[in-house]
């Protein structure tokens, strides 16, 4: 994991001092609300429905046990004893006091954390595959590039006042687990036929009001050119992105307006000036950063643990959990464990201070003291010996992290919605809970198989509803909360945007609506089909017919 050096520490400490001074000037009336707004946003501080909300960065989802303990302690001292993990691998506090935020930032800095650029119209936290570095299907570990981008984008003087927020995601495995096609810039790390590393570059993806899948503008960008090329894209966006209408200000609108070819030509023209300039990466720099992500001290183990096999045979509950929450590891004898933050009645992605501390203990005991946050709002222990899985599972059960539902219908991605967010049209958390309650039969859930259910409380799409296999969107109908359903989205290699099923529904029928949709799938599926496959084969009509016949 990346460790700060003296430079990083200086920069973060100076940021704390800067924000303390800005907050002070705001409280003294020397900064207006409008002037303070982007300053606080660029420190992750929103003012929400009931209280400010503070978003703390977890760069590309990597966090140490020590840092997790610090997050827990802060939640107790400055908040209400819980946190919310977001779909952008960050963590949010829902109840901090504005005057105390500088103190929170100072506390975070002591353990190499910050809230820099977690909001605002700037380059945000770069996100990646939660299994980076350990996935069996990985081609290249994307994390060194994430860190290189983190450093380059941190306080980039030219790009702090972009037309709108800017999100970059990188994936280095065969399976896209970072949703790169729905980011402002999506990067696939690849190796060409000469063994050189580089990136396939997509631009103009995004969710929100006008969801779009990104377009490729470069099929292979050699790694040393990463930063100059990003700089060229950002400069074109900064100069020509729309600023007259905040809903048309994302890069996707510019790419669409110019056309991908013309956009690429502009980027290339700009890049000619920057290419091979000082920002070109050196081998030494890539090596220096990569060293932070070298493998931990794995021990030699047999590929298959006999102990594990024995427990799998003896304990069906353990077997259920193993099937859903454990993923194959690239190193023999190891496994990747996902700790589910999707227990029924727990807001998806929420964790209490006790859970955070338990996760830190588990990480230290079983997984080299490191944790990852997934964009599906779960926690990951990436390096667990197969021999330890059974005891780890028993521990995880005690703290409510062992719900065996990863990738299933109840592993809901959900935004905070109307319970917390001032922009919401409707609540989202009660919908998630009602559906989780309806689908509480594990055998049934496992039989349904992989299914992404994503819920957003408004069209800003923080809950990724466009790319859920089933997406739910909160809408406002004459002051009442209604829910629109979309089918057929996907955030993976086969990325697609969901199609609207039809008129929206009242809250209390939502579990029935989902049940009807599942029934159609179960009726039509072939033995090898997942929900999305059946949907793609039979189309939306059978779902429509059934849902509106039974729920009108």
């Amino acid at each position: 994991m990346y460790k700060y050096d003296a430079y990083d520490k200086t920069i973060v400490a100076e940021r704390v001092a800067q924000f303390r001074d800005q907050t002070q000037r705001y409280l003294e009336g020397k900064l207006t609300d409008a002037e303070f707004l982007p300053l606080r946003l660029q420190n992750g501080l929103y003012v929400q429905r009931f209280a400010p909300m503070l978003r703390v960065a977890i760069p590309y989802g990597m966090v140490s046990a020590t840092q997790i303990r610090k997050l827990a302690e802060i939640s107790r001292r400055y908040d209400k004893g819980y946190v919310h993990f977001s779909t952008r691998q960050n963590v949010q506090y829902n109840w901090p006091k504005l005057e105390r935020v500088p103190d929170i930032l100072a506390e975070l800095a002591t353990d190499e954390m910050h809230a820099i650029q977690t909001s605002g119209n700037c380059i945000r936290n770069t996100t990646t595959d939660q299994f980076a570095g350990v996935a069996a299907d990985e081609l290249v570990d994307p994390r060194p590039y994430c860190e290189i981008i983190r450093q380059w984008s941190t306080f980039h003087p030219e790009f702090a006042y972009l037309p709108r927020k800017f999100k970059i995601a990188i994936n280095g495995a065969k399976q896209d687990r970072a949703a790169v096609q729905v980011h402002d810039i999506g990067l696939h790390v690849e190796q060409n036929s000469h063994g050189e590393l580089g990136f396939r570059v997509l631009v103009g993806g995004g969710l929100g009001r006008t969801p779009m899948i990104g377009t490729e503008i470069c099929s292979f960008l050699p790694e040393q050119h990463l930063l100059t090329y990003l700089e060229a894209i950002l400069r074109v966006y900064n100069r020509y992105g729309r600023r007259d209408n905040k809903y048309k200000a994302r890069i996707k609108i510019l790419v669409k307006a110019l056309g991908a070819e013309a956009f690429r030509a502009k980027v290339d023209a700009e890049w000619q000036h920057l290419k091979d300039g000082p920002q070109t990466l050196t081998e030494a720099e890539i090596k220096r950063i990569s060293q932070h992500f070298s493998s931990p001290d794995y021990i030699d183990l047999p590929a298959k643990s006999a102990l594990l096999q024995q427990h799998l045979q003896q304990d069906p509950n353990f077997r259920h959990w193993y099937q859903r929450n454990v993923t194959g590891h690239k190193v023999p004898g190891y496994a990747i464990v996902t700790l589910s933050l999707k227990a029924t009645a727990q807001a998806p992605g929420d964790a209490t201070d006790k859970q955070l501390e338990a996760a830190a203990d588990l990480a230290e005991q079983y997984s080299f003291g490191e944790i990852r946050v997934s964009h599906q709002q779960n926690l990951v222990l990436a390096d667990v010996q197969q021999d330890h899985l059974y005891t780890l599972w028993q521990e995880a059960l005690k703290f409510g992290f062992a719900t065996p539902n990863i990738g299933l219908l109840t592993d809901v991605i959900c935004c905070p919605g109307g319970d917390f967010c001032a922009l919401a049209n409707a609540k989202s958390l009660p919908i998630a809970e009602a559906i989780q309650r309806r689908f509480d039969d594990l055998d049934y859930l496992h039989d349904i198989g992989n299914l992404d259910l994503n819920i957003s409380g408004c069209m800003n799409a923080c809950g990724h509803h466009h790319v859920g296999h089933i997406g739910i969107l909160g809408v406002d109908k004459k002051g009442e909360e209604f829910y629109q359903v979309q089918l057929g989205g996907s955030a993976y290699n086969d990325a697609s945007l969901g199609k609207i099923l039809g008129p929206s529904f009242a809250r209390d029928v939502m579990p029935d609506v989902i049940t009807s949709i599942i029934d159609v799938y179960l009726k039509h599926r072939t033995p090898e089909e997942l929900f999305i496959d059946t949907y793609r084969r039979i189309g939306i009509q059978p779902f429509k017919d059934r849902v509106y016949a039974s729920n009108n």
Partner: protein
Amino acid sequence: MPVIIKNQTVISDTYTFYATYTEGDVLAKHSIIPVDDFLANPSLLEQHPGTIGVWLDSHHEPEALSPYLHQLAVIAVNFPSFTDGRGYSIARIIRERLGYQGELRAIGEVLHDQLFYLKRCGFDAFKLQAEKDPEEALRGFNDFSVSYQAATDHPQPLFRHRLH
């Protein structure tokens, strides 16, 4: 007397700002006129050698100025709103691509908390909003003692000059 910040000190502003200019208008000794009006009357350079400057708005393309750059006494870039970040790119292009060495002045909504970034992008003169205290704003230049990325003020990124 109006003031500006130049090279991180507060000095008086000797330039007169013209929101518009029409051919034949009588200009003050030191004047800053709109870029389009200047481009329509480039002979002004001979009439006011070394004392005329231009200002660009955030949608302007600085490239058009390149034939005249070295004769302009000042180039000002307007920030119609401090959240309009186009001026940062304009400044870097003027300095790094076009090679302009003279005074590059940020005007419009220029605030304490933007000074560090503005300086990094090549501005060396700053006209703050009239009601803001320029002496207090000077602190803004020192918010950070080190930066990761290359920009106009430090053309080498940290990774090319780090000590360890």
